[in-house]
């Protein structure tokens, strides 16, 4: 009887197993944190980080789709986050009178924010995906900066006569006395009604996880990975390069947009500068440290690395410094076989020698 059970587990392909483990991790984490929350056991700072963590997880897994699955380095990911964020703010602001339910407004805002980011993704993708390697990276960086710059000069408000848009100044909006400003140029978005919730964050993470994993474990995912591993060979078996590059890139952009929207609607003011090159790089660090192409790794890395500076609060002024040093050390250890072996010899194996061994040597042979 137990023999039959083992057989069923074996027949599930490893990719599917992995996918369900990831769903499990997210669901269990959500359940545990929700319980802790309702019991009042979470610190205030951690509570405030729940929504941003969800956003950064989605940013990381969506960037991993471009960098790890498609194999193209994108340095402007935060630009899509930005588009989603400000679109969401505008949509939510405009709906604030008509739709009372915060959750519904959030839902609509996230969808529209995602679509907007997707459209920008298509516009950026058309020129970008023709380039290779470092040139592609530079152009994505350039687009990220352009988006930030444009939003910094954007003025949007509304009054009884409708929406007003200007690129020059607040005054040029010509708002009536009952008008409200939504986006105020370099000051950013103001007076945002905070409607983001942890539950929404959880649902967003789960949704994006489902989309990405189902996409990767399918013919479309295989085509995208084929482009990564050998573009010339992929073309030779009839795979349409532009179609699949765009598929990966735009899907990634849509998710980043949705994450940005959720992020923005969590604060009362948001500036475009928050979504600049530094944010793009931060997410890239999450992806690389978590393992390029490794979705679970991205989720974990995003969570841990986001919380880390908070946990290092004790060291206050030195924490970013420590963060930087940790980053450099981790990169050296994981990428230099000599140093890694040294580490295992001198530190890890002696520790292992003290711990009781589990039966079966297969796990021992594995390196992370």
């Amino acid at each position: 009887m137990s023999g039959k059970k083992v057989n069923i587990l074996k027949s599930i392909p490893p990719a599917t197993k992995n996918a369900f483990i990831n769903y499990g991790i997210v669901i269990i984490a959500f359940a545990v944190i929700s319980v802790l929350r309702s019991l009042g056991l979470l610190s205030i700072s951690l509570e405030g980080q729940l929504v941003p963590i969800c956003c950064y997880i989605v940013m990381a897994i969506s960037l991993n789709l471009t960098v790890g699955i498609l194999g193209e380095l994108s340095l402007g990911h935060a630009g899509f986050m930005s588009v989603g964020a400000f679109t969401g703010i505008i949509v939510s602001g405009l709906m604030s009178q008509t739709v009372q339910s915060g959750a519904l407004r959030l839902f609509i805002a996230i969808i529209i924010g995602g679509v907007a980011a997707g459209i920008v993704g298509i516009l950026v993708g058309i020129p970008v995906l023709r380039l290779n390697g470092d040139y592609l990276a530079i152009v994505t960086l350039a687009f990220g900066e352009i988006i930030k710059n444009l939003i910094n000069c954007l003025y949007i408000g509304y009054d009884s006569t409708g929406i007003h848009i200007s690129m020059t100044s607040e005054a040029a909006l010509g708002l009536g006395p009952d008008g409200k400003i939504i986006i105020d140029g370099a000051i950013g978005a103001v007076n945002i009604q905070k409607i983001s919730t942890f539950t929404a964050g959880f649902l967003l993470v789960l949704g994006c996880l489902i989309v990405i994993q189902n996409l990767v474990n399918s013919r479309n995912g295989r085509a995208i990975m084929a482009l990564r591993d050998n573009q010339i060979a992929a073309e030779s078996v009839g795979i349409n390069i532009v179609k699949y590059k765009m598929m990966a890139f735009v899907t990634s952009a849509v998710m980043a947009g949705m994450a940005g929207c959720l992020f923005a609607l969590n604060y009362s003011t948001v500036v475009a500068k928050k979504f600049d090159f530094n944010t793009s790089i931060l997410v890239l660090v999450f992806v690389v440290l978590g393992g390029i192409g490794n979705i679970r790794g991205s989720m974990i890395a995003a969570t841990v690395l986001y919380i880390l500076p908070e946990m290092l609060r004790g060291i206050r002024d030195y924490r970013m410094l420590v963060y930087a040093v940790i980053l450099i050390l981790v990169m050296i250890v994981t990428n230099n076989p000599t140093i890694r072996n040294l580490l295992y010899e001198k530190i890890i194996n002696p520790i292992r020698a003290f711990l009781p061994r589990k039966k079966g040597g297969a796990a021992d042979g594995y390196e992370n």
Partner: protein
Amino acid sequence: MLFLFLISDLYAADISFKRKCINNMAFLSYLIKGLSLGSVYAIIALGYTMVYGIAKMLNFAHGDVIMIGGYAAYISTVYLGFPPVVALIIAILVCTLLGIVIEKLAYKPLRSADSLAVLITAIGVSYFLQNIALLIWGSDPKVFPSIAKSMTSISLFDGQLVISWETIITIIANIVIMVSLTLFTSKTRTGKAMRAVSEDREAAQLMGIDVNKTISITFAIGSGLAAIAGVLLCSSYPTLMPTTGSMPGIKAFTAAVFGGIGSIPGALLGGLLLGIIETLAKAYISMQLSDAIVFAVLIIILLVKPTGLLGKKVIVKV
């Protein structure tokens, strides 16, 4: 697209005012300013392009080495009271040493690693430098004393064209550096070794070239140049903060790619063009949108010439 529509709105508003001021002198003055800014970008871009050529890595921390150079010069003049030339030399020494140390500690262990891994390490170094500077000097902007402090600007054409000495020194420095570097790489043994390692590291090694030494020298030169760029940059734009190197670094990096990454004349061309476009955009179109315009031009040119202006097309054997 929407961007163009909104921009034309802005442009129309601005141009009626500007029309009164547009005359040849103003244009010339902007052009010269652009050359000066472009010279700074070119010198920075050189560091990026040389390191990329030889180690195939994007030295993300380069912009922050510039910032350290700025602080080194600042300390030398303001706290130690040295004259500007000595301060410059100290800055160059500090940065050169810094560049070599960074290469040995952080980049060399990853020589055989994925380029993405090296990029992330460089990012770590960049964060590290910025935060060290933050800890030591704080985030308040320091006022940088110009190297041409005591020299009054040159006035031409009855005062219609005013060129500051900082501008002149920057442009001359750029020319000198470019010429010496080109001579260095084509005539000297070390320079040729650098070119060899850039082209084919294994073959160079088989020919007896000390690859490690050559790479270290490249980093040293790049970092030394960064110091010069830092001093020149801060002379013309006198505020100095830990984040001062970041944006010029990004722009110079785009200039290097724009000109063709790995190409020294490309870095010159890319840097100068970027500086001119940025200055003219600030003057004639919009102060706030100048960055967007610069990057937009970059994108357009890369679409037309995907390997950069002077870049070589890499031919893949099928």
